[in-house]
């Protein structure tokens, strides 16, 4: 985004938090969709909002955007509830999940209506269509758009007001690999420009390459929050070691305090060692004269951390 980047970056420095959810609870009848959730999203960074389907991500984002009323707690944009913002499209741009277009209206007309309602100049419409690479399809009816094109049109609508923050609910849905790469570059560019970007997704591998920080929720509750490094190191992966004498090595390791070594699933000779560092395993083998052919600790992927934190639940929404 070329417009207003430096000014926004300066403004970002003086506004510590733009999006904040505090002790948010939302009930639908007896069902508790969000349960005492708190987190903040800061300017210049992409915050990934992760959780299995049905964890309460969409409800949280909709509450932040004033579309759903909280049962208790607060969801604030720029220190105010969204409904109290005087010019909301200049503060937050949003992409929501689900249908949001009249199929008989053209993409350009959809944006024209949004721009007119927000009091924005019509020139922004063509600028945004060019930005999301839909300028050639702007005069086509939305019902002829692919899912990916609709996502881009949503993004164009979100950016119409040149907002300081973006709230995106599953924006990668329906995008092909090229589209996902485009989205990743796009979101990184938005953050570099000083915007606060809050993005939910279940495409975890993609999120790992896009976000600076993550908030993980499960069953409406916060289960983890932090930078990717903090999160992936917070859940310790076992050390893998391959030796021609696995039983001897296993016994030697088991003699150490709090160390567990089990035959690994990778094949004969492999051990999975928990409670010990690479150095501990290597030293123990050397001290006991046990040959070691391979020794490593895999870096935890965001996906495995996510599944571990959320108990591997991926059902329902």
């Amino acid at each position: 985004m070329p417009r207003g980047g430096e000014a926004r970056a300066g403004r970002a420095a003086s506004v510590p938090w733009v999006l904040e959810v505090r002790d948010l609870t939302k009930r639908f009848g007896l069902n508790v969709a969000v349960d005492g959730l708190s987190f903040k999203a800061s300017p210049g960074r992409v915050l990934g909002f992760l959780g299995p389907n049905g964890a309460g991500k969409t409800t949280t984002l909709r509450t932040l955007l004033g579309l759903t009323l909280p049962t208790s707690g607060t969801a604030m944009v720029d220190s105010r509830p969204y409904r109290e913002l005087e010019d909301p499209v200049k503060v937050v741009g949003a992409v929501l999940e689900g249908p949001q277009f009249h199929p008989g209206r053209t993409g350009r007309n959809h944006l024209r209506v949004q721009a007119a309602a927000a009091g924005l100049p019509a020139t922004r419409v063509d600028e945004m269509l060019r930005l999301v690479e839909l300028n050639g399809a702007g005069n086509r009816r939305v019902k002829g758009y692919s899912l990916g094109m609709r996502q881009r049109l949503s993004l164009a609508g979100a950016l119409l007001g040149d907002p300081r923050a973006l709230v995106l609910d599953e924006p990668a849905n329906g995008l092909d690999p090229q589209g996902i790469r485009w989205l990743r570059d796009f979101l990184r560019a938005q953050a570099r420009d000083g915007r606060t970007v809050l993005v939910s997704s279940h495409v975890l591998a993609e999120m790992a390459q896009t976000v600076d920080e993550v908030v993980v929720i499960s069953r409406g509750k916060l289960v983890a929050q932090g930078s990717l490094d903090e999160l992936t190191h917070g859940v310790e992966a076992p050390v893998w070691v391959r030796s021609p004498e696995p039983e001897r090595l296993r016994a030697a390791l088991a003699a150490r305090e709090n160390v567990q070594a089990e035959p690994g699933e990778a094949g004969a000779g492999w051990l999975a060692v928990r409670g010990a560092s690479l150095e501990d395993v290597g030293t123990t083998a050397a001290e006991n004269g046990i040959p070691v052919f391979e020794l490593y600790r895999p870096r935890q992927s965001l996906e495995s951390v996510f599944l571990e934190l959320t108990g591997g639940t991926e059902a329902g929404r």
Partner: protein
Amino acid sequence: MTRLVGAELLKLRTTRTFWALSGSALALVLLIVVLTVAIEDAFGAEHDVIELLSTVGLCGLLTLVLGAVVGAGEYRHGTIAWMLLVTPQRLRAVGAQVLACALGGLAIGLGIGLITAAIALPWLAAKDAAMPAAGDLLQVFLGSAVYAGLAAAFGVGLGALLRNQVAAVVIVLVLILVVEPTLAALIDGYGPFTLTGLGTAMTGVEEGSDVLAPGTAALVWALYATVLAVLAAIRTARRDI
């Protein structure tokens, strides 16, 4: 508010539904007027001409349907979400939509009235019809246009309240074609207050003790539309989207 109403009018104009229902209303009115003028040999009384031209009021039925489709369509297509993202003050958002549809309905009524007048009046004059005074003609056309506008506003309120397009259209039709005639037959004095009775009164085609004055009829209809719009706005304000 002007900005929002302008955006809602743009929203109306950029869908086929608006143009299809406007075209249908025009075709229906012209079909009846043209056939009647062509078939009838004599229009000896001014009231015959007024009655014929009051056919323009039929467009109110279609603007009523248009309003219901627009009001409920926001929920059907999910456009209510971004409508409220741009205008989070929900009472303002619903109010702007009701006003815009009223203006759209008024424009449809005026347009159809003008086209009908341009075709029918010279033709009737050529057939030596007893032409009513200009004021009476104005009453018919303006009354029909106001009726079309208020009908659209009523439809939007109903559609936004029900959120289901099919249900809203069916309820509108059942109300006008079944419920109101039945209640008017059963309840003495209710006839002038039915939607049909009010529409007839607004065009000034009938006069008498059992018909409200055009201005009063317009006020009563506006009251109906306002009540529905307020209910829809309150419900929208409290609803999770």
